């Protein structure tokens, strides 16, 4: 049983590093503003509605679509595997590779493989894994998980990367030029791309009608990973299925604009089957998704297309950094997904939000994120995941606030009032409010008292009424 991730404490640590915090906040706010590319598309809101409806239709008919996909993919020459959980996924991937005596795997970015912790599983069994996505590779070399779902290393400064590459690749630690660093990565990864006999990708969308896997990248590294070797494994969560090629267009028009502000990513690729002499495997992964499908309040999070727009707009994420969540998925989508994996470990994540609702309004598939955040808080209460001290403070508050006489006595003095009002609840961190802020001072008298003396007539009338 794991202790809950203390996101607030991790955020505080991140904030102490003003250089990295300011950079992350500035970069991602700029990304958020680039979403104005949506202005190019007059039908943007209609597309969002369509995308949401297509996903809801598919998820509510998922079993049929899964069977359709399996049949089409199989007819295309793809070998379809089914993984109930992360471990089974990793074992299947390993077995495919071991059968071909593969000792080097190149792969493109896949949050699912992060979720399954595939890399350490393979590495322990003697298979070297090279991430071909620049951000993922940086994080791999630095032994850190991704900090953001589309830009895994977006929190690192150029200097961080220059130092890291000089340690791992022997490049110039003082050359922080972005193009130079991208060149160092390219030069050092190319040999692996050329020599690997197996490549792995994830998928953004799975088209049931044609049995095709769709992957969107900026670099083309999914195409390289899938096309250069003769063995391609594609791992994907079952929720990524969409019905038709026609419906794919709706999502493609929304995805890049939501993620980076570009109309489309440089490479929007479709893998339908192996080429002659090569093999293609697809691993369909459940790992809790089918269970989440049955959660009345929370199944809409399965609509997610992994664009990260919610993260870019989230003011809490930008001040906390992605690693503060201690989870595979972070930011708004993370705090509503992670409790489905491990409720205790992630019991504090739903509180890492001001409930400002910005996320819901940028989500291309209209997930009701802020409502799910609120809903998870209630679930935490129901599942006794709320700290006893906090609950007790709330109980006291409720008692006082539901009894006018008690309330009025309590609010006559500042110190007693502070004990009552949950805003200043002293359950969690002592005098937390006052750490960086001045405490408000009580008025000379409460409004209640003022009204009694200044509007005695109406006061009397209401009392009688």
């Amino acid at each position, binding site marked *: 049983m794991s202790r809950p991730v203390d996101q607030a404490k991790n955020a505080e640590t991140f904030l102490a590093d003003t250089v990295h915090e300011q950079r992350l906040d500035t970069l991602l706010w700029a990304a958020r503003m680039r979403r104005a590319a949506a202005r190019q598309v007059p039908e943007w809101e209609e597309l969002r509605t369509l995308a949401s409806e297509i996903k809801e239709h598919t998820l509510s008919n998922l079993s049929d679509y899964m069977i359709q996909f399996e049949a089409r993919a199989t007819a295309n020459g793809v070998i379809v595997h089914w993984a109930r959980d992360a471990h089974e996924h990793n074992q299947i991937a390993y077995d495919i590779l071991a059968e071909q005596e593969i000792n080097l795997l190149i792969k493109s970015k896949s949050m699912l493989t992060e979720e399954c912790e595939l890399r350490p599983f393979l590495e322990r069994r003697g298979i070297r894994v090279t991430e071909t996505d620049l951000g993922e590779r940086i994080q791999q070399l630095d032994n850190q998980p991704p900090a953001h779902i589309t830009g895994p290393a977006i929190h690192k400064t150029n200097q961080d990367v220059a130092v890291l590459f000089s340690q791992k690749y022997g490049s110039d630690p003082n050359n922080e030029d972005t193009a130079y660093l991208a060149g160092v990565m390219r030069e050092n990864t190319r040999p692996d791309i050329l020599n690997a006999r197996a490549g792995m990708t994830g998928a953004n969308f799975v088209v049931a009608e044609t049995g095709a896997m769709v992957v969107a990248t900026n670099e083309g590294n999914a195409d390289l990973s899938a096309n250069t070797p003769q063995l391609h494994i594609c791992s994907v969560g079952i929720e990524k299925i969409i019905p038709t090629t026609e419906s794919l267009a709706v999502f493609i028009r929304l995805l890049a604009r939501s993620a980076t502000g570009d109309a489309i990513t440089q490479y929007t690729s479709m893998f339908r089957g192996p080429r002659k002499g090569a093999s293609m495997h697809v691993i369909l992964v459940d790992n809790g998704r089918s269970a989440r499908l049955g959660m009345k309040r929370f199944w809409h999070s399965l609509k997610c297309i992994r664009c990260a727009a919610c993260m870019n707009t989230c003011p809490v994420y930008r001040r906390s950094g992605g690693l503060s969540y201690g989870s595979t998925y972070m930011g708004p989508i993370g705090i509503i997904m992670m409790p489905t994996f491990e409720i205790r470990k992630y019991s504090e994540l739903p509180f890492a939000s001001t*409930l*400002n609702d910005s996320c819901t309004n940028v989500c291309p598939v209209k997930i009701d994120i802020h409502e799910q955040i609120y809903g998870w808080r209630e679930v935490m209460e129901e599942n006794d995941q709320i700290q006893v001290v906090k609950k007790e403070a709330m109980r006291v508050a409720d008692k006082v606030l539901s*009894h006018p006489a008690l309330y009025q006595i309590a609010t006559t003095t500042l110190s007693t009032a502070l004990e009552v009002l949950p805003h200043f609840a002293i359950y969690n961190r002592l005098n937390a*409010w006052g*750490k*960086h802020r001045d405490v408000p001072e009580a008025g000379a008298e409460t409004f*209640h008292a003022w009204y009694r003396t200044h*509007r005695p007539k*109406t006061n009397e009338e209401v009392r009688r009424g």
Partner: protein
Amino acid sequence: MQVALMVPCYIDMFYPHVGIATLELLEKLGVDVVYPKDQTCCGQPMANSGCYEEALATEEHCARVFASFDCVVTPSGSCTHHIRNKFNAGADSPEKQNLVRNTYDLVEFLHDVLKIREFPWATFDHKVALHTSCSAIRGLNMASMSERVHDAVFSKPKALLSGVPGIEFAEFERVDECCGFGGTFAVTEEAVSAKMGYDKLAFMQKASPDCIVSSDMSCLMHLQGCARRQKQDIPFYHLAEVLNGVSPWVGQSAVGQSAVGQSGVGQS
């Protein structure tokens, strides 16, 4: 039409002058206002923390207190948003439904019900950094949001304040980013909350406003706390005070001035 005035708990305690300004403003507009004296709180602080079981009694008490009124006005976007959209700690009841249906934020009441646009008794020869809360923008649709790029730009608080002679608005960046208060978030994620407040103030200050105005005192409570800690003297006003025409110094300085009746900026 009789209007019941709901004064949020934290205004009752810390910013009674905002309740007074709201009351006086409504009276100036010829509204028959009463203040049910048994009111306390809407239960939002407990409910937002997930502790909805601990919000139950307070919520029901609130519904009972206002049961006989078909129009309830409160100078708080966050309380209105909570009542209208999240008032479900316990089972539904006719009293609750009544309150859900009939509660208005002060801005909504003035802008949409009374349809007032002019406040001839007031002047405010100052440059205002107007802050609109997330509850008001995204919960109550009181202003457009930058996330929705195709929506027409509008702001009900700004429309009202524009009716006060002399007023000028400071244009600042990240105008609809959250200020960081977030209810109990302000203490549970204190570091992030404060940083958001500091950032919001910094963006506002770049536009050199004379003061900061909002229709949500909870945001201002937080921003003021941040500002004072940074030794920034900038005054904070609730929108009701500006529209009412009486602008006492709100600044809760370390000296602890009483807020009511203090002569200050804007008095002619």
